C-alpha cells in the first residue's frame, strides 16, 4: 500500500525540504550566468540550465525574503505615516488612538530602559519591534498559501513568505545592532577604552566572546523561534494530509482545523514576545554601550 502510494505522493522529507527553500536568484558558476536556482528537479519540471542553490556561491539573493520584508515594512510604516499625516486636534480617530497606544508602549519601554543621550534609540526600537511583528505575523498565514500562489499564479516553485524563518533577515538586524553598539561604545569610552573593556577586564577575552555571541544569539533566537513555529505548521500539514488519505475523505479538514488553530493561538504569544524581546535587548545593549560604568 505504502509502496503503491509512494509514486503518487510526495515523500515527507521532500515536502519539508520544499518548504524550507527560498526563492533564490544568483550567479551560477556552472553556466556563468545569473538566474533562479532550482533545487529538486524531480519534484517539478524545470529548466535544464538551472543551478542548484548549493552550486551558487556568495552572490545568491533570497528574493522572497527581500521582497516580503520591503513590502511589509512599507505597509507598516506607510500606515503609521498616513495616520501621522491625518492626525488632528480634538477627538482622535480610532486609528490614531491605536497608533498612539503603540507609540506610548514603545516609548515607555525606551524611557525606562535607556539612560543615554542618543536620539536614535527610540526610532530604532519602534522600527525593529513593528517590523519584526509584521514579519512574524506572516507565520500565521497557511503554510501552503505562498507556494500555491507562487506556483500556480507566478510560476515560482519556491516562495517563503516568512522573512524571519530565513536566517539572513534576523542576522541583518543583529548586525545593525552590533554596529550601533560598537559605535556608541567607542563614542562613550573611546577606542582604547572599548578595546580595553573587551580584552583586559578581569575575565580577559571572555568579554570579547560574550560581545560576539550576544549579537549572534540575538539573531538566532528570533530565527530559531520562527523557524520552529513554521516547522510545526508544516508537520501539522503533513499529519492531516495523511489523515485524509488513510481514514476519512469527508472529514479531512477537521484534524487540520483543530491542530492548526491550537498551535496558531499558542504561536501568537511567541510572535509578539519575540519581537518584544528583540526590542528590549536592543535597548539594553545600547544602554550598556552608551553609559559609563
Amino acid at each position, binding site marked *: 500500500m505504502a509502496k503503491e502510494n509512494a509514486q503518487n505522493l510526495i515523500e515527507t522529507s521532500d515536502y519539508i525540504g520544499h518548504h524550507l527553500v527560498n526563492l533564490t536568484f544568483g550567479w551560477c558558476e556552472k553556466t556563468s550566468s545569473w538566474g533562479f536556482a532550482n533545487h529538486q528537479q524531480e519534484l517539478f519540471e524545470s529548466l535544464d540550465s538551472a543551478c542548484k542553490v548549493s552550486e551558487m556561491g556568495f552572490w545568491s539573493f533570497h528574493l522572497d525574503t527581500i521582497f516580503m520584508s520591503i513590502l511589509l515594512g512599507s505597509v507598516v510604516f506607510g500606515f503609521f505615516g498616513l495616520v501621522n499625516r491625518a492626525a488632528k486636534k480634538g477627538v482622535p480617530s480610532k486609528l490614531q488612538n491605536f497608533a498612539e497606544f503603540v507609540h506610548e508602549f514603545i516609548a515607555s519601554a525606551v524611557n525606562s530602559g535607556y539612560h543615554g543621550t542618543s536620539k536614535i534609540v527610540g526610532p530604532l526600537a519602534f522600527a525593529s519591534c513593528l517590523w519584526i511583528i509584521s514579519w512574524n505575523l506572516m507565520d500565521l498565514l497557511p503554510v501552503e498559501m505562498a507556494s500555491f500562489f507562487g506556483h500556480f499564479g507566478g510560476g515560482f516553485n519556491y516562495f517563503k513568505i516568512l522573512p524571519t524563518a530565513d536566517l539572513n533577515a534576523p542576522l541583518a538586524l543583529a548586525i545593525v545592532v552590533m554596529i550601533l553598539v560598537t559605535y556608541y561604545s567607542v563614542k562613550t569610552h573611546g577606542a582604547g577604552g572599548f578595546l580595553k573593556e573587551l580584552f583586559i577586564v578581569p575575565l580577559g577575552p571572555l568579554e570579547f566572546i560574550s560581545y560576539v555571541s550576544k549579537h549572534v544569539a540575538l539573531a538566532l*533566537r528570533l530565527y530559531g*523561534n520562527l523557524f*520552529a513555529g513554521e*516547522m510545526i505548521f508544516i508537520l501539522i500539514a503533513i499529519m492531516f494530509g495523511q489523515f485524509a488519505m488513510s481514514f476519512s475523505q469527508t472529514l479531512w479538514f477537521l484534524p487540520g482545523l483543530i491542530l492548526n488553530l491550537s498551535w496558531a493561538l499558542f504561536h501568537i504569544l*511567541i510572535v509578539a*514576545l519575540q519581537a*518584544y*524581546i528583540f526590542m*528590549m535587548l536592543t535597548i539594553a545593549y545600547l544602554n550598556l554601550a552608551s553609559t559609563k560604568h
Partner: protein
Amino acid sequence: MEVEVGRLIAGALLTGLGALGAGIGIGSLTSKYIEAVARQPELQGQLFAQVLIALGLTDALPIISLAVGLLFLFT
C-alpha cells in the same frame, strides 16, 4: 550503528533534553515569581513584564532544539 538510527536518536535526544532543561528553568522562574508576588503583591505589574521577558528567553532554547530535532527526525 546505522546512520538512520543515529539520526533518530539524535532527534529524540534534542527534543527531550531541550524540554527537560526548559521545564526546570521555567518552573524555578515561575515559583520565584509567585513567591515574590505573594510577598509584595503591589509589584506584580512590574514583575510580570520582567518574567515574560525571562520566560521568552528561556522558552527560545527548547523550541529551537525542538525544531532542529524535528528536522533530524523527518528529513
